């Protein structure tokens, strides 16, 4: 497999602040590669270094084996789709898309053909003479992508281009963008803070935090085998238990909560006996009123605090007995649990295999997190 983008030891410092810290990774040709991270993690800085707007403090950057250091953005075989799209308001759709081709010195029929081809590809034939302000949000999106793709870049960079769209359209554009990438076969490097965007579209996702990659993996692996506490919290929904690790006489590990409950842990972890761990259990891994569970199942009694109905994504908010903790439990909408009401007492349980444990990370991802 050919490598489209190769980054080695890339570092960017702004004064004392290290925005991107010694990153090394490769992106294979034709893949949809996402960089996922909270705002301020350095993902935009990384993208701007690839595009050529920032000069790296250290490290190398190669595109298809060609060293890119010292090459101006207008000479790089990459194009960027900007966060706010940056379509030229004084030009119409056709002129916007033809802009890059004309800068290359292409003229006349060749330009017309390429632009019209591209417009057809993004599903906007006949829109050439339209003014930018006559387009809807989704159409602008497609024009911005067409404007970059028409130059046939080796790597297309996308800087959270779906951020400004409303939720419904964003869902739609996710699928559109994935289909488009498969169709044109260009390598996409997509940055986002929205984990669902990254998971749905990508072949590979790098989870970025504080200038470094916490994990680079397929979306499936990120979800089921997070490599760190940060990834477990950032990717998908997760219940976090603050626990201490206890070892019994037989050398088996248990997680002890503050309220004194002991939970069985899977043996597959390479755990050390020390305090302060975070244990994570996915909402859909927790089973409501488990019938004939396996003996090692962790089962607790809990009170239903609220039913968070959201169609297929409905959940229960429960509190284990004698505690103030909150646990989110997936509530399948198969009518099996229709009898559950708020303030009911139920049993919940999970397979120890479904729980993961990491050293506690004191940093909060969101400010309103407890």
């Amino acid at each position, binding site marked *: 497999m050919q490598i489209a983008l190769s980054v080695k030891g890339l570092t960017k410092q702004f004064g004392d602040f290290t925005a991107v810290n010694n990153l090394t990774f490769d992106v294979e040709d034709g893949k949809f590669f996402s960089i996922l991270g909270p705002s301020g993690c350095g993902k935009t800085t990384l993208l701007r270094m690839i*595009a050529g*707007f920032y000069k790296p403090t250290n490290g190398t950057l190669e595109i298809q084996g060609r060293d890119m250091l010292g090459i101006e*953005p207008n000479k790089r075989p990459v*194009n*960027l789709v900007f966060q*706010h799209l*940056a379509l*030229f308001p*004084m030009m119409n759709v056709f002129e916007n898309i033809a802009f890059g081709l004309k*800068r290359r010195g292409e003229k006349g029929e060749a330009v017309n053909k390429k632009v019209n081809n591209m417009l057809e590809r993004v599903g906007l034939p006949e829109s050439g003479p339209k003014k930018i302000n006559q387009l809807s949000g989704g159409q602008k999106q497609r024009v911005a992508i067409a404007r970059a793709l028409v130059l046939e870049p080796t790597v297309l960079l996308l800087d959270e281009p779906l951020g400004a769209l409303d939720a419904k359209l964003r869902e739609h554009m996710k699928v559109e963008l994935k289909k488009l990438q498969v169709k044109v076969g260009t390598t996409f490097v997509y940055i986002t803070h929205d984990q669902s965007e990254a998971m749905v579209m990508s072949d590979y996702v790098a989870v970025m935090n504080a200038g470094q990659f916490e994990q680079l993996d397929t979306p499936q692996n990120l979800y089921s085998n997070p490599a760190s506490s940060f990834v477990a919290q950032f990717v998908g929904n997760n219940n976090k238990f603050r626990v201490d690790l206890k070892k019994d006489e037989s050398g088996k590990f248990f997680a002890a909560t503050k309220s004194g409950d002991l939970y069985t842990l899977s043996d597959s972890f390479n755990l050390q006996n020390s305090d302060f761990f975070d244990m994570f259990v996915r909402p859909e891994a927790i089973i409501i009123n488990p019938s004939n569970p396996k003996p090692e199942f962790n089962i607790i009694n809990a009170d239903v605090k609220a039913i968070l109905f959201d169609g297929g994504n409905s959940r229960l908010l429960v509190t284990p007995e004698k505690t103030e903790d909150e646990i989110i439990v997936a509530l399948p909408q198969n009518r099996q649990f229709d009898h559950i009401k708020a303030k009911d007492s139920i049993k919940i349980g999970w397979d120890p295999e479904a729980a993961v444990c990491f050293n506690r990370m004191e940093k909060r991802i969101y400010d309103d997190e407890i």
Partner: protein
Amino acid sequence: MMMKYKPNKIRWSFVIFFIPVALWLFLLIVLPHLELLRISFTSSGTNGFTLTNYKAFFTEPIYWLTFVRTALYSMFVTAIVLVISLPVAFYITKVASIKTQGLLMVLILVPFWVSELIRVYGWMILLRESGVLNQFLVKIGVFKQPIELLYNDITMIMGLVYTSMLFMIVPIIGVLGSMDDALIEAAHDLGAKKIAIWKEIIIPYTMPGIMSGSIIVFMLVLGSYLTPKLMGGKNSLWFTEQIYNQIIIYFNWEQGSAFGFLLLLLSSLIIWIALKVTKQEFRKVIK
């Protein structure tokens, strides 16, 4: 209950605020101009309607030559002001840090707190034969004896550029300030070089600001009196001076009014042509 729409309801608040404006426009601008227009078609020698004053303009070369000269010089000054203002405005809005931006704006504004007369006298003190610049140049040995730097076309143009610069910079800053930096980066990313970015992105985007600045500067320069009078030489006659001479020195109000209307006609015509050429709408430009 149905809401009844009353289209003929008089909005008193609007009327109250509109009356002073209407009075001001009518009494101080429309009425005097109508009177001047009437006067321009009369002559002290004859009674009734006459075209003598307008005929005099076209038959006396000194009149229409001054007229053409004034128009050409005004356009020239506007062009110079534009060429200087664009990079200055770009620097202030896009390059300078926010702190420096404020400082630079103050630096541009401060000279305009002083009246035009004082500013022109300032230049005269600098440039005249016994002035600061001459003394300095003689002292360091560039000139053997002082040279008269005032009273020529170049000095006059410089003075006009200086006095009207602000009125170009401010509207351009207004438009450039609202421009997303990403547009420039996007153009760069799509392969444009510096010249192409200016030609294809920055200037077209700034066009409304450029046009409104140009209109203001052109009108100011065309109608300016002090700077050409004080800094220009005997040969740098400005058309406003012709009007002044007719009305104040020769007391020929009829001729002066005719000149005034010709100037008004000229400025309207040139602005109209400029708007047509650059494909700008007047409504957008005056916003």
